């Protein structure tokens, strides 16, 4: 099976989607001829023409609005927002229009749209190229939020998102475009070529949009993660010597409550994690739902491993980033509690 990094896997998904369905179009700032600043849309313009893969003015609200109009009129737009930090100008179009149109028109108009956006930190991007704004989006009714953690899932989830008839915000953990990241910035760069999830079929397949995956089985504590932190959590579990079960959520809305509760009821302990600031983050939603569904199985409080309630710092990036040590400390604490 061919080896692909996440960029190649995403590009392959777009290529297959555009080949398969002439109504799929791809656009964004620098996303046409140049193929995007991370090259996810490379070669698509050459292969499918200017009107199917094109550049846009620098106006994220207009990009979202254009996608809305196109989708209502039968196309399946895949719009790129260059960095998830820059998605906020589009928020009105996403919150008030795209995600409500099916509802407010009682199904007369639908919005099969994917907004792709490079997401997360760990690339020395400073506060304007590092954000994890997923919680703003998981709060929106009618929107699916998807965050893959590896090339295999990235391709399968993106194809599923494009083929789905609901709007999807698809965040791409850019720290892992080229290889998995265990949270140790000084370690040697890793490559997807040596990772089982770097084996990506050439052809079409999908990964379900509402299923999490147990990526490490364990009996003592459940560790929930998505995106970049999946690999950090896995490494921390290995190093801690604690028998932790690690779950990769993949889809945040709607999240896979069955897989989560099954695991927590088995282990009796849970840590939820996110790279985003702590307060009102997605981890808080998970913690609230887990205590509702699993309270009588819990043997310890649910712990959170998160970024701090600060903007993403530049020089002190690694003091912000929830790395292995913070996970290991949380694992120890949750095992010592109660």
């Amino acid at each position, binding site marked *: 099976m061919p080896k692909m990094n996440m960029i190649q896997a995403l590009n392959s998904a777009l290529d297959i989607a555009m080949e398969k369905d002439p109504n799929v179009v791809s656009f964004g700032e620098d996303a046409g001829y140049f193929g995007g600043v991370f090259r996810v849309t490379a070669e698509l313009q050459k292969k499918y023409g200017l009107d199917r893969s094109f550049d846009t003015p620098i106006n994220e*609200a*207009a990009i979202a609005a254009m996608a*809305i*109009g196109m*989708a*209502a009129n039968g196309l399946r*737009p895949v719009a790129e927002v260059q960095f998830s930090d820059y998605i906020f100008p589009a928020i009105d*179009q996403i919150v008030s229009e795209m995600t409500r149109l099916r509802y407010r*028109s009682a199904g007369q*108009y639908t919005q099969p749209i994917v907004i792709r956006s490079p997401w997360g930190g760990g690339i020395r991007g400073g506060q304007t190229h590092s954000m994890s704004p997923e919680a703003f989006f998981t709060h929106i009714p009618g929107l699916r939020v998807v965050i893959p953690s590896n090339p295999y899932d990235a391709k399968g989830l993106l194809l599923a998102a494009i083929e789905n008839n609901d709007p999807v915000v698809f965040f791409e953990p850019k720290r892992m475009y080229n290889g998995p990241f265990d949270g140790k910035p000084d370690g040697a760069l890793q490559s997807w070529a040596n990772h089982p999830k770097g084996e990506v079929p050439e052809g079409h397949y999908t990964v379900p949009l509402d299923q999490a995956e147990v990526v490490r089985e364990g009996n003592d504590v459940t560790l929930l993660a998505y995106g970049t932190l999946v690999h950090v959590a896995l490494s921390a579990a290995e190093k801690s010597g604690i028998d932790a079960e690690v779950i990769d959520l993949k889809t945040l809305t709607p999240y896979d409550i069955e897989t989560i509760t099954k695991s927590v009821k088995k282990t009796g302990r849970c840590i939820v994690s996110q790279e985003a600031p702590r307060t009102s983050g997605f981890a808080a939603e998970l913690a609230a739902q887990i205590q509702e569904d699993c309270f009588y199985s819990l043997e310890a409080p649910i712990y959170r491993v998160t970024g701090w309630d600060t903007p993403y710092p530049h020089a002190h990036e690694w003091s912000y980033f929830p790395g292995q040590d913070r996970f290991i400390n949380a694992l120890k604490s949750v095992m010592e509690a109660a």
Partner: protein
Amino acid sequence: MATHEPRYRVPVPKYRPGDEPDFSHLKIPAAGQAKRPGVDVDGRDTIDLALGMVRVLDHNHQAVGEWNPEIKPDVLREGLRHMVLTRVYDERMLKLQRQGKMSFYMKSTGEEAVAVAGAMALKDSDMVFPSYRQQGILFARGRDIVDMMCHCISNSGDNLKGRQLPVHYTWAEGNFFSISGNLGTQFPQAVGWAMAARYKGEDQVTASWIGDGTTAEGDFHGALTLASTYHAAVILNVVNNQFAISTHQNMAIGDAPTFAMKGLGYGIASLRVDGNDFLAVYAAMQWAAERARKGHGPTYIEYFSYRADAHSTSDDPSGYRPKTEAKAWPLGDPIERLKNHLIGLGEWDDERHETLEKELNDLVVKSYKEAESHGTLHDGPLSPIPSIFEDVFEEQDWRLIRQRQDLGV
């Protein structure tokens, strides 16, 4: 009460309650003055039209000049009928709102020509992305009045299942997009729709409307940038009715000489049109539609008009402007002007007009009775309660299923 001079300019309207409005300072070009260029004109060459005003009906109610669309009397009478129906409907709905039959209403009094003539100059197959004050389009396109009323009273017959405020219609069958309450969002969406129509090889034209106040929104700039960049088959309309709720248009226009001029910075063909002149609105929209259909790109149009009544049932204009302003408005009333034009042609008279008003009033009263047979907002039947969890996603996910159970329905 503040006594100091303002330290920076904050625009205020010329007249406040108690003032005697006088609009003689407005420079209104005479009817027939504007030149009508070919539909393939370079957008940048429309500066005279953006600064002037396309007007066809003169002060004697005669159609004059190059923009006279020379419409047959039958079509004019049809336009008059749609405008009168719009007004009668609005009046009735206002009364019903005051009686508590609906939560909210928005009239379009004084602006009927903008919607009706615009819709009639387009094909019914053309797509429209209106704001909440172009209900005239629905009448011009023949939407069932009972259906419209069922929407406004949110009963079991509401095609939107009671999910939207009154007046926020959606009618996909009639190529009428879903009305948003968020101002201007539809403007750039219309460009996307127009691009998709071309993508699919259709010759459909797309039109969208916003108000003068909304030109201050970022989506206005986004729409004009997109339309200009992608040369979209779209008509972007700004209804300058002078007011955004209580805020005068001078809070949005800045130092631009006209709203129409704002289009020229994008290189888009830009027209300023007498919005109370049925024939001028018709002619401008017809010109823009032909331009778009033939692939010559977008048109941006300002309709100079006056919002003759409140913004909505939630405000009282006597609190922020003189009561006599609408009467003093120099461009008159669109229905009166078309009526007088038809009378001048010998194609209409006062008696027929009164009969028409009565007929349409009876129709509206009768339609409302029928609408109420499908339920009322207060006593139902409404759409079933579980429907609040439908159409959020294509299929309900576990959260919605659980929440529906929590609600016990």
